[in-house]
Structures are given as structure tokens and as C-alpha cells.
């Protein structure tokens, strides 16, 4: 083995195969040298908290719940947000490994995107770092997961709109490879199929921003939908803007349902009907799952499903007589 490789291992640099790394550390141990403090396997009472952004108020709300639950057990969250023009998730994972974190909580990220790179999750598993994921993940990662039940969320939205006479529904959801969005779309389509053609569902994908939501909703409005089910509150705010730009009214002409129930959604124009994620309970469950592993419990791969609730405010209403429906 080259001196350079040994040096890379001792300085805990990336790009060394796990087997090589083990070989070098074993050699150190055998020769009676102490391992560098970084490599002794003692982990800090730090937990990585990976969030896609903090603009959408659901993420700071989650960070607050998770951070509070961690602090109560003497752990401090290391904050990793992939801001615009920011750094990759893999880079953050390297930095978290450098910090010797005891575990990582991912709240949204590549684990939910089928087409994104997933090698850094593999790295965490190799190093034996406990991980917990928020909301649905791609199938093969094998980490425990705390998720809002997307099927129930879709049923609540579908049922609410159909009970008010809407038959032409549209779904404004995240990107095509986003697993929670896939689940919601599948559930909406299954329900439409059960209606034997009485209810139809059109789908438009968008990045998770208000502007993208507006553009996607505009595509659906061109197909004369009267009820929009959105993948986040922010997408719903964009959808409302699209409806107005088309010269129509919410909810008189088009009803809009969000997802999350993040802060201040009762102050929007109109106040947003939305599916609330029980983030308080989910955040606490995630921390418990994670810290149990940190303290030596075996890692499970199970997915804990939490029931969301439909919060009805002012952005949904009955289909207007003569409105262009089915």
C-alpha cells in the first residue's frame, strides 16, 4: 500500500475504499500506534440534520421539532441545507462523517428521488452511522422511515373535492422521480379508476417552488380541471396565482388543496385548505428511532406511517352551477 493511501486514511479523506481503510487502521492497531482521535470510532453527540431548504416553512417547523427533541436528550443538530447554488448532499455527508456525527436525519433529499445519486447513503451504511428518513424513500436504501401516509392524504383530498361535485381533478405534484409524489398520483388514479370514469385526474409535475406550481397549474387549467390537489402548500400558492391569472376565482371556479399545513397558511388569500402533516409526532418518532439506534438498538427498515388530516379553509368550495365540469 502506498504512503499516500495511508496518509489519506489517517487524515480521513474521502476516496479510499472501505476495505483499504480497515486494512490501514488494523495495521495501526497491530503495530501498537494509537489511531488519530478522528478515527477512534468515538462519535460526537452531534446529529446531522439534512434539509433541502428553509424557505418553505414546513422545513424550519420540522427542524424546530427535531432540534428540540434532540436537545432534550443532549444531542445537538448539525444543520445541512442544500440552498440554491449550494453544495451537494454527498459533500454534506462527507463533512458530517468528518464531524464524527452519531447519526443523520434526512428531511427530504435524494433518498426520495429515484434518479438522484444515492452513493452517499451507502457510505453512511458502511460506516455504521444510524440514519432516519422523513417521508417516502426509494425502495432499496433500507433505512427506517417516518412518513405521512400519502394514500390517506390523497383519499382525503379526492373525497373532499368529489363530495363538492368536482369531477375533473388535477394534481400538481413534485418531479416525476419524487417518490411521495408518485405514491399520491398512484392513489389518486386508483380512486379515479374506482369511480368508473365519473372522475378524471390529470397530472402535472413541478419543482417545489411557487413559480413552478403556477406554471404546472396553468397547464392543468387548460384542460378544464376544477379541483387542484397540490404536493405542497407552496405549490398550492402558485396554483392559486395561476387560477387568478386565468381570470378565474378560487374557490368559486377552481378549488385548490395544499399539502403540509405550514405556518401562516390561515393568512393566505384565500385561507388555504390543506392536508396537515403531523410533524410534531413524526419529528419525535424520528428522533426516538434514531437515538435508539445510536444507543445500540438494531436498525430496522420499517416505515412508520402517520395519518394526515384535512384542514378545510377557504380555498375549496362546491362546484358552481354551470361551471365547466364533467
Amino acid at each position, binding site marked *: 500500500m502506498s504512503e499516500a493511501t495511508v*496518509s489519506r486514511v*489517517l*487524515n480521513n479523506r474521502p476516496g479510499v475504499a472501505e476495505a483499504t481503510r480497515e486494512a490501514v487502521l488494523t495495521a*495501526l492497531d497491530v503495530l501498537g*500506534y*494509537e*489511531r*488519530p*482521535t*478522528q478515527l477512534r470510532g468515538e462519535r*460526537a*453527540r*452531534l446529529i446531522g*440534520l439534512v434539509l433541502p*431548504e*428553509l*424557505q418553505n*416553512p414546513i*422545513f*424550519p*417547523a420540522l*427542524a*424546530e421539532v427535531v*432540534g*428540540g*427533541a434532540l*436537545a*432534550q436528550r*443532549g444531542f*445537538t*443538530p*448539525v*444543520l*445541512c*441545507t442544500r*440552498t440554491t447554488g*449550494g*453544495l451537494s448532499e454527498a459533500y*454534506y455527508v462527507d*463533512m*458530517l462523517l*468528518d*464531524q464524527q456525527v452519531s447519526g443523520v436525519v434526512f428531511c427530504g433529499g435524494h433518498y426520495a428521488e429515484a434518479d438522484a445519486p444515492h452513493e452517499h447513503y451507502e457510505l453512511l451504511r458502511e460506516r455504521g452511522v444510524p440514519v432516519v428518513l422523513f417521508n417516502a424513500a426509494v425502495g432499496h436504501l433500507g433505512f427506517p422511515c417516518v412518513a405521512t401516509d400519502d394514500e390517506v392524504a390523497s383519499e382525503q383530498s379526492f373525497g373532499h373535492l368529489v363530495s363538492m361535485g368536482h369531477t375533473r381533478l388535477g394534481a400538481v405534484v413534485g418531479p416525476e422521480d419524487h417518490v411521495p409524489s408518485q405514491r399520491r398520483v398512484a392513489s389518486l388514479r386508483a380512486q379515479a379508476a374506482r369511480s368508473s370514469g365519473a372522475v378524471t385526474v390529470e397530472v402535472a409535475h413541478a419543482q417545489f417552488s*411557487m413559480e413552478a406550481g403556477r406554471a404546472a397549474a396553468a397547464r392543468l387549467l387548460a384542460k378544464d380541471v376544477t379541483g387542484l390537489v397540490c404536493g405542497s402548500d*407552496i405549490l398550492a*400558492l402558485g396554483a*392559486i*396565482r395561476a387560477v387568478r391569472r386565468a381570470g378565474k376565482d378560487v374557490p368559486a371556479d377552481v378549488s385548490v388543496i395544499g399539502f403540509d399545513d405550514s*405556518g*401562516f397558511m390561515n*393568512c*393566505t*388569500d*384565500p*385561507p388555504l385548505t390543506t392536508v396537515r402533516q403531523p410533524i410534531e409526532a413524526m419529528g419525535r418518532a424520528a428522533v426516538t428511532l434514531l437515538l435508539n439506534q445510536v444507543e445500540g438498538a438494531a436498525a430496522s427498515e420499517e416505515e412508520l406511517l402517520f395519518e394526515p388530516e384535512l384542514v378545510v379553509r377557504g380555498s375549496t368550495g362546491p362546484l358552481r352551477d354551470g361551471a365547466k365540469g364533467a
Partner: protein
Amino acid sequence: MATKLTEVAAFAGVSLATVRRVLNDQPSIAQETRERVLTALDVLGHERPSKLRGHRAGLVGLVVPDLQNPIFPAFVETVSAGLVKQGLMPVLCTRTADGVSEANYIKLLMDHEVAGIVFIGSSYADAGPEHGRTLKERGIPVVLINPADANDGVRRITVDDASAVDQALEHLRALGHTRIGMLLGPGGHIPSARKLGAFVADWERRAAPDSDPGAWRELVAHTGFSMEDGRTATARPLEAGATALICASDALALGAVRAAYRQGMSIPGDLSVVGFDDSPYMIATDPPLTTVRQPVRAMGAAAVDALKAQIGGHAGPPDETLYEPELIVRASTGVVRSR
């Protein structure tokens, strides 16, 4: 000791002089060299000098009162991004409802041997005199963004609260408002006190010479920072006949809007409301909120620069830098209606 140092120098492949310079934490050593020496120390089983032990971490504490008010996550996001670009990792400390106090967090942060702390909308005085003293004694680099109390002798990055109020007053006066009220944070909260100072100074400039000097008091309410606080506190200035309200945060402004709606008033027809912060999505509120925007990005970047300078031992004077806010006019302010 000399033999130990020779061993370390040999293992690291550097000169004895270099080892000494690293151990004394002198500048002008390449990071790579420094790490080689420290690794040699570790491998040979010698303890690192205490002041070099924390270096690995490169952790920076971010202390915020809460993440409910969306201005705090906005600051956290921009400061975090700046820190990470400098190779520093932010650790997040919020004072939650569950009662993990700021004092506790500061102890946690010091246990992690953080390289510095950025306080956002709070200050280490909240941690109690003991922790404040420890921070100072250890010489831990500290930067305050919009501190909640007076902190002379610490580097501060602050939005110009007086300018915010002046801009709001000018806007409302141009719309014909003469009875203007204020919703502020608790007494003793410095940003609120500064806003009130600008408000009172303006009042005094305009007051008739023989008028009651305290007549502005009925137009001003001090309260907490939640929307519900704002909603409750709105009663006082409304009773005093205010046709417009300047609020110390967007959340307070949204509370004022709700209070007005609850009384069957229209906005801005019956009451104009100006927020403060311009937190995300205030464009989507009912009505879209006229507010005074804090330059969050510029302030966050300045805080990171100031902290980085202190960590590098190049601290400038512990001054306060004031940032100019800007008025964003949306739909919650309008021409005064004769009452």
C-alpha cells in the same frame, strides 16, 4: 520532550521548527502541513495541545429564539450557506417551547468546542451572566445579528430600525394618515425600543408646542411576537383612533389584519398595516403585505465575514454595522378614508 518532537517531525516529514510552530498555533503554516503534524501527534499517542483540539470541529453555533417566525429560518439559511462555503459547519440551537434554555445550549456548544457563535435575534445575555463570562474568558468569537438587548463590545450586524420606521411613516403620511399606531415587541427588546424611538422623535417634531408630550402612548402597544399576540394587542391603537399600524414583525402585522377583519373592518379601506422583515410568501397573504424588508442576504454574509475574521485572529473593532432596510409596498396600505 525534545525526542518526542523529533519523532513527530520524522513521522510528519517536516522540520522540528515546523512542529514547534504548529504546536504554538502560529500562523503561516499550510493547512496540509498542520494536519500532518497533528496526525503524527495522534498516531504517536501524544496529546494535542488543548488549544488545537477544537480545531477539527470547525463547528459554529447558530442560536435563534425560534423557527416559527419565518425571518429566523431566512437568516439561518443564509448564514449556514456562508459558513459551509468557509468550511465551517453550523450547529442549530433554538429555544424551544420544551424549555431547553439558551443557557443550556451555550453549555452544549462549549462542550463541542465550537469555533464561534452567531446569535440571531437573541443574545448571550439571555444565557445568564455566568455563561456570558465564560464565552468572553475563552475568547470564543461571537457575532450578533439584530441582538435583543444592548451588547456593547461585541460585533453586531443590525438592521436600521429607525430608518424602517421613518420609511413606513413617510409612506403612510403620503397616503393621508395622521393617526398612526405601533405594535412592538416586549419592553426591553432593543430593536423595538429603537423603532419606538424613531416613532416618538417623529411625533415630537410634529406635535403642537403645548400638547401633552406623552399623547403618543395610547397609540403604541407592546406585546410578544406571535400572530395571536399581534391580534390581541391591536385593540389598543384601534381604540385610540389609529387608521394605520406599523408593526415590528410580519407575524404581528398578520395578527393586526386578523383583528381588523374580526371587527368587520376592511384592509386597507379601514386600516392600513405595515409589517417588518418581509419574510417569505408575504406576497401570498390576504391582503399581500406592505412591509419593510431586512437585507437578509447582505447581513448574513457580513456576519459570516465578521466571524471568520475573528476566528482567524483578525477581529476588527467590536462595532455595530447598520443595514438599510427597504419599504416593499403591496396591498395592505392605502389612502386614508375619512372617518
